[in-house]
């Protein structure tokens, strides 16, 4: 079992709902301070966006953050160098599109992530059907690959995806790209389907915008992922202290 899964299972044992904020690496020069602030505010793991020029699964907020980050010169190497050696105390999960790893080299990417203390990877355009080379590359390093289940996923596929996923299963709340939304969409149904198939921790993401929505989602799931709502404030100039306060408002809603 990879570290990410051990950590998240242990967290669930303690009865704590996982709060997983997303930050785009390199979007501002002080982005690492935001990660630290989020942890101070009560994050249990952090998703780190690796910018890609053509983010098919992202809405306008994360698109904008990615383009800013690329304009700042962010690369896989540069962001890994920034997080390596930080003693953050919570798992980090890289979120990237497949081409970034494909181009860097699958084995080299997996090693680079592991050497930088990154515990997992979410690659939304890597379907289970195409995942074998990447999973092979991660086999001998401590990087867990997290797969997504969508509201459109039929039950046989849910089982297959749940079997492949490591660390946790990412339950998409809605048929949409990342962004902000006004309700929880299909989250309860998707989580229930995943629970049928596995006892892996199951986290809800895509569209979680308010602490109230997070609280509702956590009633059915083991944790929540909050992306665009945080990234938007950083694009608008939020300080690390602002991020800490915002993350903490989600924390209080979950506890």
């Amino acid at each position, binding site marked *: 079992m990879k570290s990410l899964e051990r950590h998240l299972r242990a967290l669930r044992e303690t009865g704590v709902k996982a709060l997983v904020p997303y930050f785009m690496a390199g979007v501002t020069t002080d982005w690492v301070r935001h990660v630290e602030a989020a942890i101070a505010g009560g994050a249990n793991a952090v998703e780190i966006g690796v910018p890609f020029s053509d983010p*098919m699964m992202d809405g306008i907020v994360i698109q904008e953050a990615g383009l800013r980050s690329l304009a700042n010169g962010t690369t896989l190497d540069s962001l890994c160098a920034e997080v390596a050696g930080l003693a953050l105390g919570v798992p980090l999960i890289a979120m990237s599109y497949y*081409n970034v790893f*494909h*181009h860097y080299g699958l084995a080299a990417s997996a090693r680079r992530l592991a050497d930088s203390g990154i515990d997992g990877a979410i690659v939304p355009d890597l379907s289970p059907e195409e995942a074998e080379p990447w999973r092979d590359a991660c086999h001998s390093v401590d990087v867990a690959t997290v797969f997504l289940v*969508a509201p459109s996923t*039929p039950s046989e596929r849910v089982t297959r995806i749940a079997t492949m996923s490591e660390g946790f299963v990412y339950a998409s709340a809605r048929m949409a790209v990342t962004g902000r939304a006004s309700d929880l969409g299909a989250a309860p149904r998707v989580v229930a389907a995943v629970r049928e198939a596995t006892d892996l921790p199951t986290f809800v993401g895509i569209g979680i915008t308010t602490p109230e929505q997070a609280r509702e989602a956590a009633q059915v799931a083991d944790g929540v992922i909050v992306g665009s709502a945080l990234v938007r404030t950083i694009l608008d100039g939020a300080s690390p202290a602002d991020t800490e306060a915002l993350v903490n408002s989600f924390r209080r809603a979950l506890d």
Partner: protein
Amino acid sequence: MAEDTVYMSTPDEFGRFGEFGGRFVPEALMPACLELEDAFLDAWSDREFLAEYRSVLADFAGRPTPITPLARLSERLGISVYAKREDLAHTGSHKINNVVGQTLLTVRMGKSRVIAETGAGQHGVATATAAARLGLACTIFMGEVDTKRQELNVFRMELLGATVVPVTSGSRTLKDAVNEAMREWVTCVEDTHYCLGSVMGPHPFPWMVREMQSIIGHEAARQLRDVRVGTPDYVVACVGGGSNAAGVFAGFANSSAQLIGVEAAGGAAVGHGSPGVLHGMRSLIMQDEFGQIEEAHSISAGLDYPGIGPEHAHLAASGRARYVEVGDEVIIDALRTLSELEGIIPALESAHAVAWLIREAGREIPLGSTVLLNMSGRGDKDVAQVLSILRSGS
């Protein structure tokens, strides 16, 4: 037509052509891709569906398109050039072949709406046309830069009842229009089909679109036989995503003809690309040293694409087809030459294939050779742009 396709083979169960192809899409879209594969397989072996597809192409789209011997160009170049006249098909390009098939399939799948990306606007116009005919709702995504380059095509789509959405993300051209169409598709797969315009994207699109365009090559092979030309020495087509080229190559893939795909120098995925994953496929992609996709730059919006269909990447790797480039600077001359010598104003995209013939006749192409040139589209959509280029004296 599945039973006719004896030349270019079907991809494997993962949709791969050699090491290229596959299906790299968000999970939300996987069920739709699987459903589409089943629906296509089923339709493409159903006589009734095929009969309807062929009859719409005949009665509505004007097929078969003729083969025209280009006598004066041939004399000038010292080679025998025959043009396959996709420019004479309804809406002015080969794009109609694919959208007739995909819109019929949309109805068969019980969906009521199509979305599509477009570069030059040709695929958008064709999709809007085929959608209107069947009463399907239609939304077209078009890079903002392209909506300006191809204003008239935007208006044509609107006249046909489609909604045109200018795309302002990324480089605001064709690749971004594909991203935006994919993002939209995630939200509406239940009732909406994504009518992709070229032999690209996730399986089954590259294969399905090639099959739906293969009528070009099968017709041309028959027509050349009928006029006793037989197998040409060369089959030449321009390549954006590669659908007109795949369509014409399909009729000659197992013959002795040399297959030549002509890329725009600023969008040459075979010439300057490397293996990568974009828009749901593994193929040759123009990208920087970090795997970020590069922006293509071409005088013709339809060739402004940093990738190429995976089957072409495989044909290139296996050596069965060759991919060459021509630069923007020779395109206007090629367009004028063909217009003046033959009374055919080609699309800027098709002019790339003409430009390669003009450059290579008597050099790479031995004098006396026989060439089939796929005239993928007509230049009406481009005349305003050509006028402004000529006026600005560049």
